[in-house]
């Protein structure tokens, strides 16, 4: 395995560990405010410095990792399942169903995604993690459906599918046994890129003030840091670096997966 792949795997492992164990490892809790030491540079007591109201930045980032992983894995999973079932159904059935899904996909792709996410999150007065996940799934499935539909359209022209139809197998069985396994490769590639995309989208929403209320999202920390850039640039730099490292690692892993699989 190449060095870069190892490095990315290490970042992803670190991110997952931080998400799973982070809140337990964090030296300070979310309510440990220390207003006397607001916006202090990194020190022994606060390894990454402090932010607004003296919160410990390292602890906040560790808690943010859990939120990022929870949102990213749920959105990728839900979008994948939804996109896969719609895409396979449309591609397999063809005709009016396929044209209808094609039209929906086109419209969804013409809609600026961040604006749609914002509109949905703001439907609730105090958005929680579930609302953000829902908002990101609303257009998250489109990419998966597009890939699944396109692949299914080409798979169903294969002789083995025709043979299965001639044998009189029910359609659901053909879709499950003969079409679905062939979709695994392109969808695994799509999902590995998807993680980075969802982390970015969630951070952007939080950055714009539309993330989950009362949560240490990396995007919200970055927003806070940008407001105090002159006083304490490390808040913005550290939280942004966490987002950047995760997206880069997931994208490079996606490249690697796609190279290996295809």
């Amino acid at each position, binding site marked *: 395995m190449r060095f870069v792949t190892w490095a990315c795997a290490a970042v992803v492992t670190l991110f997952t560990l931080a998400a799973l164990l982070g809140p337990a490892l964090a030296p300070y809790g979310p309510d440990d405010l220390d207003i006397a030491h607001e916006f202090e540079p990194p020190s022994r007591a606060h390894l990454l410095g402090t932010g607004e109201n003296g919160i410990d930045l390292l602890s906040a980032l560790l808690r943010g990792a859990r939120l990022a992983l929870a949102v990213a894995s749920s959105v990728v999973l839900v979008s994948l399942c939804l996109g896969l079932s719609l895409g396979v159904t449309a591609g397999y059935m063809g005709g009016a169903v396929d044209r209808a899904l094609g039209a929906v996909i086109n419209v969804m792709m*013409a809609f*600026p995604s961040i*604006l749609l996410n914002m509109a949905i999150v*703001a439907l609730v007065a105090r958005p929680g993690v579930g609302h953000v996940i829902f908002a990101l799934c609303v257009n998250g499935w489109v990419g998966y459906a597009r890939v699944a539909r396109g692949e299914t359209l080409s798979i169903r022209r294969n002789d083995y599918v025709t043979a299965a139809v001639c044998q009189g197998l029910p359609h659901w069985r053909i879709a499950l046994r003969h079409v679905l396994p062939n979709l695994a490769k392109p969808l695994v590639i799509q999902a590995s890129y998807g993680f980075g995309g969802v982390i970015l989208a969630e951070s952007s929403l939080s950055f714009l003030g539309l993330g989950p209320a009362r949560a240490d999202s990396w995007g919200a920390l970055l927003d806070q840091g940008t407001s105090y850039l002159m006083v304490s640039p490390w808040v*913005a730099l550290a939280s942004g*670096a966490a*987002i950047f490292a995760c997206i880069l690692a997931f994208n490079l892993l996606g*490249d690697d997966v796609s190279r290996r699989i295809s």
Partner: protein
Amino acid sequence: MRTPKENGRSRRTDLVAGIGRRLAVGVATVWVVATLVFFAIHLLPGDPVAQILGEDAPAEAREELRAKLHLDRPIHEQYGIYMAGLVTGGLGQSFRWPERSVGSLLAEAFPHTMRLALVSMAVALGLALPLGVLGASLGGGTLRGALDVGALVGLATPNIWLGPVLMVVFSIKLGWTPLPGDDPSGLGSLILPAITLGTALMAILYRLTRSSMEETMRRPFMRTARAKGLGEARSLFGHALPNALLPVVSVGGLQLGALLTGTVITEKIFERPGLGSLFLEAYYARDIPVVQGCVLVMATIYVLVNALTDGAYLLVDPRMRRPVRERGAS
């Protein structure tokens, strides 16, 4: 067998039908977007009348304003009024500034955003094209590796982070560029936002130019160009680049829409005026007509750019003139 004259007529019919089909899809898309935005915004919590007049305003004043803004009508009537307004070109009045029309607010903000988007596009294209040609001509080695890694990093760098980093380095530490909020009309204050907005696009276009150039350079006409003694630079820029440009320009065009929505974040970071800032402010203040106007303008530009890019493709590539179904069957 068709005569050449009939062939020409059929080509023209195909072209007109192709453009017509794409226009119809574009109009339908804008209509769906307008409808979605209308219902999404009207379901938002919060009373715009209370936002405008304040919570303590007398009930009569509230009712009067509610009637004036048609907010006392059922939602389907409001939708009808909104759609009728759209067809006649009116986007309504702003809730926050009742004397200002949404159109005038959009017209004021639009040039700032367009300037930012175009400069970002220029930065992205201006760097991606020469670097892509360089990357393709190198074939391998350290410099090529560095360019590829740079593109990967550029693609993964979120603009919500790149903006603050650039600002810390160039505005705060080095003092080379103005601080956010200082004179947004000057070219100096446009540089960092344009880089922030254009970096990801630059990375995409670099990779596309490089791979498109590599493919073109393997074609026989390139061997002919070299065989007849043309220099490397002339064969690269005179023969390979024009042939490799088509996918690059089309993707660049399609990305203009994405750039426009990206301005929401960039304008917030750099405190610049524009469609994105107008949208966010209107959004927090529940100024519904302005929010609708902003989203609609962005979606329309997105659809329009897509249609124009498709149209350009139809002109150069006759195979694209038939619908996908027929293409697949032949």
